[in-house]
């Protein structure tokens, strides 16, 4: 039973998490696991209504920076045990990720990435175009110059993941309020004191900003300037068919990704460099475009012509909360006690959320130094320590 209350919020809480997407719920769950009480999660619409519920559900370990590889590796381990951990079937299936390129010039970088991933114990291999056919028999390899494949990458069903976390949170006494909008955060002398909502005010010493695309404006209210930008991304799902496609196919050349879900649907999207990066959620528009449908169909058929008679069922859009280096922003802010953020996942929040939730919870409850959180702090931008990953796709 998921307790989705619509009542007035309680007068006090030990910690308030803003946003019931994967980040807010995973962090709340881990905080409860560590023994924290009086945890409240606030969600302005419904569970998973933001970026989590709109994402493609992919989880990959193929990155070009060691930090990203380690993060994703930890997340994959968590996903492997998630159904058991939460007592909820999240349909995590490890069909692998086949990452292709149409450009000869990408090949050295792919080989370097494979070497780095292997050093991190990620079982990625470099494949010649012909070898891709062993993984996706009907792939059109005529333009593919090379590929990498990691069999342990996979996909999960985003809504099952957030529902599973919500149920597990409920069992641990976490209160989740849907239909509750945070209107303001209150501080006194450099400390968080309260969260104001349209259903009442909660006095709390701790706030975790997990608001995804809305994180920037929430933080701005208390003078924390996040460099995040909001970018619209579209995605679609096809009719449901018997399994014919095992891995997620992803192209670093044209930004398409597609896989087949446990329901049998092709789920996929394609990046669009024409999409503007918007400074703030007031422009949060998630309507669908014809341009996406056509571009996706053309790109899909260029790699998988057999899908010509397969039908697109639905397309939708969501927001990426993008940072300048496409890496999340974690941790707190100097001089503002009790405020934490976990945002800016740049389209990879679903794959990293379980792991960052765990680290954030440990960091919040113990204050113990965490080198990953440290390296992903907001300060990195003022330090100039920006390390972009080359494999940002979709």
């Amino acid at each position, binding site marked *: 039973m998921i307790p989705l209350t619509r009542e007035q919020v309680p007068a006090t809480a030990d910690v308030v998490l803003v946003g019931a997407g994967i980040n807010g719920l995973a962090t709340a769950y881990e905080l409860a696991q560590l023994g924290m009480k009086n945890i409240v999660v606030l969600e302005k619409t419904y569970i*998973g209504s933001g970026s989590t519920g709109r994402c493609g559900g992919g989880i990959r370990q193929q990155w070009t920076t060691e930090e990203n590889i380690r993060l994703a590796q930890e997340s994959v381990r968590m996903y492997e045990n998630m159904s058991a951990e939460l007592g909820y079937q999240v349909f995590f299936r490890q069909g692998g990720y086949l990452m292709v390129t149409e*450009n000869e*010039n990408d090949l050295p970088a792919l080989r370097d990435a494979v070497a780095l991933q292997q050093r991190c114990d990620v079982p990625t291999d470099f494949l010649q175009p012909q070898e891709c056919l062993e993984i996706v028999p009907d792939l059109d390899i005529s333009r593919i110059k090379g590929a990498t494949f990691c069999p342990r990458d996979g996909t999960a069903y985003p*809504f099952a993941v957030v529902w599973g976390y919500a149920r597990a949170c409920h069992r641990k006494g976490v209160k989740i309020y849907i239909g509750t909008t945070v209107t303001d955060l209150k501080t006194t002398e450099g400390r968080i004191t309260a969260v104001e909502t349209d259903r009442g005010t909660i006095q709390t010493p701790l706030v975790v900003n997990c608001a995804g695309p809305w994180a920037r404006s929430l933080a701005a209210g208390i003078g924390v300037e996040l460099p995040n930008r909001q970018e619209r991304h579209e995605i679609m799902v096809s009719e449901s068919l018997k399994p014919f496609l095992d891995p997620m196919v992803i192209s670093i050349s044209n930004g398409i990704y597609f896989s087949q879900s446990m329901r049998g649907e092709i789920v996929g999207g394609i990046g669009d460099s024409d999409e503007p990066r918007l400074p703030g959620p007031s422009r949060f528009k998630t309507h669908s475009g014809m*341009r996406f*449908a*056509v571009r996706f169909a053309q790109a899909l058929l260029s790699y998988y012509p057999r899908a010509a008679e397969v039908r697109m069922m639905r397309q939708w859009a969501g927001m990426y909360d993008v940072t300048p280096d496409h890496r999340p922003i974690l941790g707190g802010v100097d001089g503002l006690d009790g405020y934490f953020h976990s945002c800016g996942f740049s389209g990879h929040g679903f794959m990293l959320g379980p792991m960052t939730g765990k680290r954030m919870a440990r960091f919040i409850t113990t204050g113990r130094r965490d080198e990953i959180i440290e390296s992903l702090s907001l300060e990195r931008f003022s330090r100039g320590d920006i390390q972009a990953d080359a494999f940002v796709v979709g």
Partner: protein
Amino acid sequence: MSHPKTFLCRCEDVTLEEFREAYGEGFSELESLKRYTGVGTGFCQGKGCMSEAAAELARLRGIEPGQIRLTTIRPPAEPLTFGQLAALDEPIFHAAQEEEE
């Protein structure tokens, strides 16, 4: 032969009883009910059942039907093949070929 089931959504095979059970599990708004039970996510794109599901939810919650928000309904209104879509005139999108190199 056939059993006395009342179907709210025929595409995804959701009975009225299941919809009520899902509500009982805490799914109290239409967007989550749609995704949890499958109501309206089938081949008919929700044409066949969204208004019935919404009316049932209003009854369950004891509120006026007018207070129930319609879920987002995504294009297309009928499933279209990738072949049909790809044939439309939009700029062909391929990898930046980097021919200059």
